[in-house]
């Protein structure tokens, strides 16, 4: 009975894994396809990987995507972390009010957020990299706040108060007590924001104007004419790079989990 359950579970997990990875496999295969057509196999080639690095348009879009993701998540952390600290110190009523506002960009449909921002932007700035950056910061801040807030709630405030009583300045106490406590939340918020920004299409599409392209909007533009094979090559490279990064990060965090208890106070 238990054996049967093992087998069934294994088959089911395998089935979902195939479902999740089948299209990815298709794309990886296409990146090695010598034919420009999506439906015929023209033999194995590495040439798209070579031409990728001389394709200025795609490299430009890649650079824009990465700079946008890094910039918007960094700024989201700089605004969001103090924001979370401040909101946490408010009365229950104000706290709920501002956390409700924080949820708006997350609950609203992307298409509505994108259109609302675009309609607003056209009144005072030209649509371009700047407007996309502002839009990405806007939808990234909630991810930072929502991952830092549980950390702040768990924080032992007496330790902060104690360092202040013992004569530490507020800035010193912040860096020595509050920041280390919040760090795991800040890191996960940053990476959430980074991922969301890299992955966004809809909001970028509406706020970007004519000149700028991220990878997503560039791919969308190519759908009718046919996707450039270099795009498959680039996606495969990104996919492999992220796999390696995730494996390394997961290994490190698994090890850390077993070494330190998650108590916080002894880390000071």
């Amino acid at each position, binding site marked *: 009975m238990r054996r049967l359950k093992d087998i069934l579970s294994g088959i089911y997990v395998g089935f979902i894994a195939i479902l999740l990875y089948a*299209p990815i496999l*298709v794309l990886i295969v296409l990146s090695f396809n010598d034919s420009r057509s999506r439906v015929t196999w023209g033999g194995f080639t590495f040439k798209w990987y070579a031409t990728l690095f001389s394709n200025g348009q795609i490299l430009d879009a890649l650079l824009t995507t990465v700079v946008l993701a890094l910039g918007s998540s960094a700024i989201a952390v700089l605004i969001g972390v103090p924001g979370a600290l401040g909101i946490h110190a408010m009365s229950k009523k104000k706290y709920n009010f501002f956390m409700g506002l924080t949820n708006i960009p997350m609950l609203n449909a992307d298409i509505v957020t994108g259109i609302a921002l675009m309609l607003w932007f056209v009144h005072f700035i030209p649509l371009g990299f700047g407007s996309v950056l502002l839009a990405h910061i806007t939808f990234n801040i909630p991810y930072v706040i929502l*991952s830092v807030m549980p950390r702040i709630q768990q924080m032992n405030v007496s330790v902060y108060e104690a360092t202040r009583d013992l004569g530490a300045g507020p800035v010193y106490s912040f860096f020595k007590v509050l920041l280390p406590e919040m760090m795991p939340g800040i890191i996960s918020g940053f990476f*959430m924001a980074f991922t969301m920004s890299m*992955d966004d299409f809809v909001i970028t599409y509406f706020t970007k104007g004519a000149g700028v392209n991220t990878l997503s909007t560039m791919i969308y533009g190519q759908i009718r004419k046919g996707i450039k094979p270099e795009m498959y090559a680039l996606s495969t490279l990104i996919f492999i790079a*992220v796999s390696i990064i995730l494996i390394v990060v997961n290994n490190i965090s698994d090890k850390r989990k077993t070494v330190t208890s998650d108590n916080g106070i002894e880390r000071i």
Partner: protein
Amino acid sequence: MNESEGRSSSRRTWLSGPYILWIAVFTILPLIVIFKYSLTDNAGSFTLDNISAVFSPINMKAIWFSFKIAFGCTFFCILLSYPMVLAMKHLGLGKKSFSLFIIILPMWMNFILRILAWQMILSNNGLLNLLLTSLGFEPVRIANTSAAIMIGVVYDYLPYMLLPIYMAIMEINEDLIEAAKDLGASGFTVFRKVILPLSVPGLLSGTVMVFVPSMTSFVVSDILGGGKLQLIGNIIEQDFTAGNNWHMGSGLSVALMIFILISMPFTAKHEDQGHESVIW
């Protein structure tokens, strides 16, 4: 907690100044602007036509279709995710970050490309039919149908359902399950009385993360629906890009937003539990 911090914390509230300013300028004001557009015509005078356009036959058809897609997508995502998480738990894959990794990694391949890959898999002479005919089955014709769109959105949003359910179920204290078993509960009773009730928060947040986006997406239906099947997102998008009819598009957006607001109280209940993400 808020109260116990006393006076020193009340001084800390100014830290949120920049963020509150940001909300005002980039969350509240854009919403006011879109409302203004939705309530005016091209000449700038007040009208309710853009909002009431929701009730035109074409738009009603798109909204009804969007609702069916969103409902079906949420349903199938739960149907696929729940057994997946239970199977992972059964196989002891639960606490390992490797299993999270399996769920998250596909999200790093650009989603438009992944949907295009589905187009190739599902097309009439695509990979699925190649597989079916080589196994001796009849080929299926699902390219450019609502079934293809459904497969696309379920695929796209499955990780957003898997993750919260996964987190809710893996957090269940193993002792509770052991205790229920010791007291004579059968496997099914343990599921019904312990696992299912404790996974409700995960189911709810998964539903929030899947329902609204699948209802309003326009890329999936664009690619897999062959341009003939329109979700409300497609109509709004065309108002802004092809039709250049911003007021109408805003009216439909506002109507969509109202619909989402109405469904919000149902999600607000578990909102303040705020779990830290375990993705990283």
